[in-house]
């Protein structure tokens, strides 16, 4: 057993978190910043934060993840981090020549109380920021929220720092995709294009963290939302914020700053959530939904209908981030699967209420918890008390899946031991087929494995 000390009996905890289902803000801010073209993220704190975040993103994407750090020392703690940040900004522009730098803070600089805008202003006044270059920022105290909060804060930082309003309206829709894979962002752009809707999608990590092997390392890959695009986002018809946790705040800021109305939607994962996204996008842009969407949607419905017997009634434990879990739970219910245990380390009262509401009819006994002590240790204990047929989550779920011998499908962040997530989308109808294929192969591989010779099936 890998997790040999996990007891079946659940004990109330208020002090210790064991095997977390979240990490801290800055990594989310770093990932979001990579979604702006020519941007070099910067971690204002100790070296370790930057090193850890770069490593985590690198292992998940198997791609270069570049970022700077203020390399705090004991001295910086005493005198504040201004000098370090000033020097870092100047060095990064001199040596690495980014279009812009996106600064996020850490628990250290937040505890010290460094005033980032003031430092940036000083850097500006001291000509540390070359002509036409920019420094944007957000506050990401690690002791608030989770990695998702950090992503959301940097999205807001992008809005505050880069979005403008000329007053001359543009026939385009802003899409904030939330913390999804580059493949998903690529797919969302494809959907909009197929619908004939011009969009500004940000942040956009496609062609940034899924770059080709060309024999050349590009510090600033082709992808990322350009500042030019972002500058026009203030003139858009509307903003679609995908995911209340990762995207809503950015959309709010855009509304406040540029009076662009916004609508918050679930991530378009599965049939129902994608339906709502397609209708909202078509509605916002006042276009008809092309026939091709009926076909793509119908293919997803078709494959579920064909294979429903393998999905129906299967009990599932899932952990991850709220914006993913909500549409995933809805999708599973649409497939007559039974969400049994749902865990997210990310806080937010709305979450459990939403899950319970979704499950009320078909899975009233669902266990759900998020925020403090909503961790994999608890999930594992729940599973020991109420076994499941399928476990869904990031790579850390592998240890539970192995100990309890449960089929396991990798979804979420981080995925450290497989590839594919950055190349094949899970959003949209086509993404739904990928999810169904993953579920089915996990479930059917298990049937093949556990079947006796006598009961072995050729046709399934």
């Amino acid at each position, binding site marked *: 057993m890998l997790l040999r000390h996990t007891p079946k009996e659940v004990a109330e905890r208020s*002090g210790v*978190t064991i095997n977390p289902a979240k*990490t801290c803000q800055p990594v989310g801010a770093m990932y979001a910043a990579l979604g702006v073209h*020519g941007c070099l993220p910067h971690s204002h704190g100790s*070296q370790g934060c930057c*090193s850890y975040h770069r490593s985590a993103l690198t292992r998940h994407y198997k791609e270069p*993840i570049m970022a700077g750090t203020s390399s705090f020392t004991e001295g910086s703690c005493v005198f504040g981090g201004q000098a370090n940040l000033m020097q870092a900004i100047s060095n990064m522009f*001199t040596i690495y020549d980014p279009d812009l730098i996106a600064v996020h803070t850490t628990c250290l600089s937040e505890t010290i109380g460094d005033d980032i805008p003031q430092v940036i202003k000083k850097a500006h006044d001291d000509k540390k920021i070359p002509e036409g270059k920019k420094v944007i920022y957000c506050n990401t105290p690690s*002791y608030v929220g989770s990695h998702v909060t950090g992503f959301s804060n940097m999205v807001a930082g992008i809005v505050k720092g880069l979005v403008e309003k000329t007053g001359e309206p543009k026939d385009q829709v802003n899409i904030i995709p939330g913390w999804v894979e580059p493949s998903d962002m690529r797919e969302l752009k494809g959907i909009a294009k197929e619908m004939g809707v011009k969009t500004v999608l940000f942040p956009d990590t496609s062609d940034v963290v899924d770059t080709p092997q060309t024999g050349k390392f590009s510090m600033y890959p082709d992808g990322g939302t350009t500042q030019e695009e972002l500058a026009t986002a203030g003139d858009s018809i509307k903003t679609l914020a995908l995911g209340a946790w990762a995207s809503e705040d950015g959309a709010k800021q855009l509304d406040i700053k540029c009076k662009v109305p916004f609508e918050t939607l679930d991530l378009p994962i599965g049939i129902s959530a994608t339906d709502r996204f397609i209708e909202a996008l078509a509605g916002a842009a006042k276009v008809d939904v092309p026939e091709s969407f009926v076909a793509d949607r119908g293919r997803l419905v078709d494959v579920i209908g064909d294979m429903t017997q393998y999905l129906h009634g299967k009990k599932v434990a899932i952990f991850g981030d709220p914006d993913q879990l909500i549409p995933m739970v809805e999708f599973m219910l649409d497939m007559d699967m039974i969400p049994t245990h749902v865990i997210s380390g990310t806080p937010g009262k709305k979450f459990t209420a939403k899950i319970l509401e979704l499950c009320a009819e078909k899975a009233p006994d669902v266990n759900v918890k998020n925020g403090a002590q909503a961790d994999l240790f608890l999930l594992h204990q729940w599973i020991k008390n109420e076994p499941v047929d399928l476990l869904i989550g990031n790579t850390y779920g592998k240890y539970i899946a192995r100990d309890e011998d449960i089929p396991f499908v990798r979804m979420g962040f981080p995925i450290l031991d497989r590839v594919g997530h950055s190349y094949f989308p899970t959003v949209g109808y086509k993404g739904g087929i990928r999810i169904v294929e993953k579920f089915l192969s996990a479930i059917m591989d298990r049937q093949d494995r556990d079947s006796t010779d006598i009961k072995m099936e050729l046709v399934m």
Partner: protein
Amino acid sequence: MSEKINLPDPEKIKEEILAKYPPKVARKRAKSMVVVDKNLDQEVQSNVRTIPGIITQRGCCYAGCKGVVLGPTRDIVNLVHGPIGCSFYAWLTRRNQTDPDENGEGGENYIPYCFSTDMQDDNIVFGGEKKLKQAIQEVYDIFKPKAIGVFSTCPVGLIGDDVHAASREMKEKFGDCNVFGFSCEGYKGVSQSAGHHIANNQLFRHVIGNDDTKPEGEYNVNLLGEYNIGGDAFEIDRIFKLCGINIISTMSGNSSMTGFERAHTADLNLIMCHRSINYVAEMMETKYGIPWFKVNFIGAEATAKSMRKIGQYFGDEALIAKIEEVIAAEMPSIEALAAAAKKKTDGKLAMMFVGGSRAHHYQELFSELGMTTVSAGYEFAHRDDYEGRKVLPTIKVDADSRNIESLTIEKDAELYNPRKNEVELEDLEKNGLEFSEYKGMKSDMADQSLIVDDISHWEADKLIEFYKPDIFCAGIKEKYVVQKMGIPLKQLHSYDYGGPYAGFEGAKNFYTDIERMLDTSIWKKIKAPWLDKAQADECICAEYVA
């Protein structure tokens, strides 16, 4: 072996690299980039602050303390006091293998777990000690571990939580659980190195010496600075067992608190990673009279040499004979494999920038493959790791180092017992056994090769373009950057999830892996055939234009 290739003069590229820097930065970095001249005593500036914004490989003090030194020990709950991230990122990411059942089924193993107080803003504002104590209590109630280590992260120091007081209080409350803390806030020192030192101090203070039970073996040693990544310690253990040498404790790989508590009963300390662990060796010598010398189990030759030194130390003919027998049995298959691999590897170039000793040790393995290390450097070393311990007296302690506690140790009234007397030591020294000595990386590097301490991303890219090495060794953050240039990168922290690379079996694994990496067809497929020659020639380069 590395002589056989004439290295290009790196002075020009060094200038080019520095030219890009602001003057002050250039001046500072120049001191950390040294073109090797074996005839000179050359100072390699190291263990100094990383320049903000330069893009460094380095991590923090906490990483060195919790991640490196304490992480690999299975029967202690390592509770991180701070926001969730610090604990999350150190969760199973270092591949320290452990066998909890080596002394029978059902041994303790908390390594697959991640423990954190997950500090929230109110803990920052009103203090986190209460939550910390609650967490320690819950850990104790659920797991009943024999030890709990508490690790301070950045904010803890600033808000003034006293992890040591809290630990002491809970330890007394429990009675049967050794609770102790580490002030290893991330901002301490200039790299992981500070964390190593802090970890050494606390192990020495709270653990080593707690159990005086006499060792069962005949030749009892501690293996220090071996972390059992990819099973290295398992392989070394295998060889020691074959020779009849008994390892009391390995710090820290496949390790247990039980071992640490008895470490002082050993008769010899063997140092693998000089950087991370020499403090403990020094302190144990002073307090208990246990001599130490440097060993290296990376490389078949190095392994044989290290084994012979142990034999020499104990001076027992039977042991010496046994060691020779073991070496004789292992070498043939290794040499055969090396010979085969060399067809692909001989004369190839390597670069390595990693750790506090690996960048030195692995030059051994590459030279066994006929490969030359054209440039190397450490991530968190001190000058002695480059220049040898002879420079220790001349190293001036700067502000950052001064803040790292340094214990003053005295002979132990009862337990001090010099394992060898003056005369014996002198004899052994005369016969080439060098105690308390490490000659450093430079001593093994070729003239005109380039040493770079705490290399920056910019420097690495330019040096790759300059040397066009056949393989580059570093860590996960560099891996895909370098491979985008079409050059295979070997991770020397994680071994790319392979290994073991230590000892005799490890050498074989390494030969095979390097041969494979230098013979990978896909690198020849990089260029789309319809692209014209010009574009192709751009290969092996880095681009900064956004």
